[in-house]
């Protein structure tokens, strides 16, 4: 089965700054991929290239198409919700449904209306009258009513409170996701989505630092908490990162011998958030 997204040596330059620097990665169908990285890592630039919104250099195919120049065709099978509230402020909710139903052959109006019916949003409201969370709910209802193969979410829950964020992800997982769909998602709130993800793509300064499935990461990386007395002995096994914790030290290992680590204490698989910090902050924090 061909990849949903296939990127090789993807490059994006803004003036003298290289926002994406020879990034190569592939995303298969049915995956929920977290595009994770600090500010300026190139997440938005990659998403813009994938969506056909911006030019790029290198090889890129999304659902078999070259995105730039084929945006409209790509949007038949792709949906995206961008990082800011982008619903037009003057647009009424019911007319937004009418419009998308009018131009999108794969949009199911009944499904959108059912999703909106679960919210307190009135169909006659204009977007500017809605709270940020409500606007995102409208947008998500429209996106989820499209029978798309790829859903791209760029910081979809930015500015939402905890309840709204939780219900956003619940709706996504329970009402939308199945094995034929693929979701590519960027967020700063790594902790919040890591139970959701099947794959992680870690970016730093425009480069792909790490790409693996969540199970792959769990098998590959290990952490162990070590007291000061045995710290030097544990360091001999070659941790790539260490972090002090309540008088003891957490050491992070990449492809280490788990049996050898077990001699120092309980070996855990670090969370995506911990890995993010460990991989991007270098030796010690």
């Amino acid at each position, binding site marked *: 089965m061909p990849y949903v997204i296939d990127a090789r040596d993807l490059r994006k330059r803004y003036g003298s700054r290289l926002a994406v620097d020879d990034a190569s990665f592939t995303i298969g169908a049915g995956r929920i991929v977290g595009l994770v990285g600090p500010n300026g890592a190139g997440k938005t630039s990659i998403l*813009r290239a994938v*969506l056909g*919104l*911006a*030019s790029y250099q290198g090889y890129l195919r999304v659902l078999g198409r070259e995105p730039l*120049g084929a*945006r*409209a*065709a790509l*949007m*038949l099978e792709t*949906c*995206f*919700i*961008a990082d*800011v*509230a*982008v*619903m*037009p*402020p*003057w*647009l*009424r909710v019911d*007319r937004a449904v*009418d*419009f*998308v139903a*009018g*131009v*999108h*052959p794969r949009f199911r109006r009944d499904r959108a209306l059912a999703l909106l019916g679960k919210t307190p949003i009135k169909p006659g409201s204009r977007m500017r009258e809605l709270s940020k969370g409500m606007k995102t709910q409208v*947008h998500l209802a429209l*996106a989820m009513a499209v029978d798309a193969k790829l859903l791209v979410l760029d910081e979809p829950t930015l500015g939402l409170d905890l309840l709204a964020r939780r219900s956003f992800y619940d709706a996504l997982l329970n009402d939308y996701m199945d094995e034929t769909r693929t979701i590519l998602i960027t967020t700063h709130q790594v902790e919040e989505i890591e139970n959701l993800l099947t794959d992680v793509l870690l970016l730093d300064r425009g480069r792909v630092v790490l790409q693996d499935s969540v199970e792959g990461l769990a098998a590959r990386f290990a952490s162990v908490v070590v007291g000061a007395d045995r710290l030097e002995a544990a360091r001999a096994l070659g941790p790539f990162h260490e972090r002090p914790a309540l008088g003891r030290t957490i050491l992070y290992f990449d492809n280490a011998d788990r049996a050898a680590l077990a001699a120092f204490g309980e070996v855990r698989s670090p969370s995506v958030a911990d890995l993010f910090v460990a991989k991007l902050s270098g030796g010690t924090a």
Partner: protein
Amino acid sequence: MRNAYWLMRRELWENRAIWILPTVIGALLVLAALFGRADIDVSAGAPPYRMVGGLLLFAFGIVFFLVMSVYSAWYLLDSLHSERKDHSILFWKSLPVTDTETVLAKLATALLVIPLVYFAAADVTTLLIAFIVSVRASSWFGASLWRADLWLQLQALWVYLIVTSAVWYLPVAGWLMVISAWARRALSLWSILPPLALIWAESAFFGTRHLAAALSVRLVTGYPQIAFHGLWAALLQAVGAGGADPSFASADVWSLLDPIGFLRSPATWSGLAVGAALIAAAIRLRSRAVEL
């Protein structure tokens, strides 16, 4: 076609001024007819019958047409900018609609939908006013407004204006859309300053004024000269003598229109070519545009 229909509906939802403005103007004119002076003193001798009714009806048409021209220019300048400013371009671009369709729908709204709305508003207003005046004013004045040939001429004039001005002013519309798709702010300045700078540079370095001449033909003198018989001369005389030439005012619209001359003028076709190139540039800019 389906997308074109929805895209134009979108423009009507977003820009409610398209129908509110002509409605307000029509309402004000109707109010003026209801409560203003509705008769003409004929003690100095009866004015030419045909002229009074005709001038009155065309005067209303001109009010609508002038307001429409200003509004359309503003609409075009705003058309590709406001969606970038409020970030909604990212929503529109998430739908399977091409940039070409979007830009052409906005152009068609400016050159076709808006003129038709004003045409309808002008017709309804003049009908109401003719009715009110007939009831309130002396019979000869009212009667001068109810003449089938006059109304037919008025309709023909509107249709002719809509079609020919859309062609003639296409390069202006294209230029406004390019600025709208490209500039980040100060859109009115950007639409005016580059041509002024080029005019200045031309006269400073070459001592010529070709660009200034070409622009003044395109913006002011060209359209009435090329699309109409004798209109420009009559306008000049009206400005010079402080009043319209009565013989011109009594001329009918059929002799005024010059569609053959319009189609045969090279300026019509060169304008069309420049306009098409500018529209293509606006489409290209829109395809690479994201939010501001």
